[in-house]
């Protein structure tokens, strides 16, 4: 991650390797649980999207800081037909099947 990204080369011991693998396995399970929780949240989220669109058209979209722009109802987006409401993407763009 951040900053100078300096990593001093060294050999990872078997003990450290085992520890990393165990934690990664747990992380995999944690991710699956999060993904399921977010699928389960979809009906409530659909209501939040509609409330968001109402606020955009009545009170405005935060274009930059406190600068608000009211969005006409006809300019609000439509959910693509057949597309799942997905909010979790394991590796970001790499997990997205959309044509790159």
């Amino acid at each position, binding site marked *: *991650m*951040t*900053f*100078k*990204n*300096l*990593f*001093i080369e*060294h050999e*990872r*011991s078997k*003990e*450290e390797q085992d*520890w*990393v693998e165990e*934690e*990664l396995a*747990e*992380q995999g399970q*944690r*991710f699956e649980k*999060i993904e399921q929780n*977010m699928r389960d*949240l979809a009906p409530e*989220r659909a209501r*939040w*999207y509609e409330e*968001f*669109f109402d*606020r*955009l058209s009545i*009170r*405005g*979209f*935060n*274009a*930059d*800081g*406190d600068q*608000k722009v009211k*969005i006409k109802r006809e300019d*609000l*987006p439509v*959910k693509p037909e057949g*597309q799942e*409401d*997905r*909010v*979790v*993407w*394991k*590796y*970001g*763009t*790499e*997990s*997205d099947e*959309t*044509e*790159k």
Partner: protein
Amino acid sequence: MARPHIEPFVDRDIAFKNMLLPGFGRGMSYKILSMDNETGACTMTVQLAGGYSQVPGFSWSEWEMIVIEGELQLDGRTVRKGHYFYVPAGYAMPAVSSEKGALLLMMYNTGEPSLVEATDHHALCQTNLYHDVDTYLDITWAPGNIVKPSVASGVMIKLLNYNPISHAMTFLYCMTPAFYQDNISYHDCAEESYHLWGTSWMMQFGDVPTGGYFWRPAYINHGAFASEFGCIALGRVDSKLYNHFHYNPWSTPVQNQKRAAARVYQRDPLLYRWMVSYSHNHPHGPEDFEQTVQLRGKDYPNNEPATDGHQHSHWHTHEHHHDDDHDQ
């Protein structure tokens, strides 16, 4: 390939585990929040039992830490909640202890947690980068509009660390009570956050309470945003933070990335054209001459200044003669 998208996650939902990696001693327990599946770099909440002590030593990885609760003793001083450390790889920290125990957020940036007993820094350590500060008492809140387009009023930040090359940042941020911001955002960088206190809400993920955490890869939608009673959190980005705001909740990461590239094309067409043509697609980027230019070095001949640093020999003395013949 890097860390997966962990959002939302609350560390209160899992139990601490004893740290058994060598060097850390007894009385340290942890919860992994996210981990890079190649390097082992990770973020974790750490609990130190009362009476914990740790030998002096360095890590192979650079790391950061903020005290969430409790106290630490090191180097003849006591640090308390809100104290932040940035520790370069190979930097030998003094012995650390906690008389009454402590809760910490620790971030190992480039490798798995490691502690090699040592009182001297590693020869490769960039020791000048080390710093620590009491973020609660010794840094004041600043408006959150450090980038444009910016967040709405009501977000305040304290910058803790900044990389002038990558523009990566570590910062505290807070949302004031009744904060809201009606847009959807994504960034060209990964983003991480841990809620030290309080609850915020995002339209995709719901409430993130105290102990709430996310690691979010680039180009993933998040927002609208709100916080009913306020919150304070530690945030990080791994490169330049740019807010791509929009209001389409169904755009995907690839669509968001294409939009970001389209905006580069619209804003910097000459640069964009150069980057996508003539095979200028090296994965590590083109050469930056400031990083590769040959420098004079210590043994360069006649390297002392020849002037006092106040001379501009290109300036012409302003001689004004009243009897000159002027054309005008």
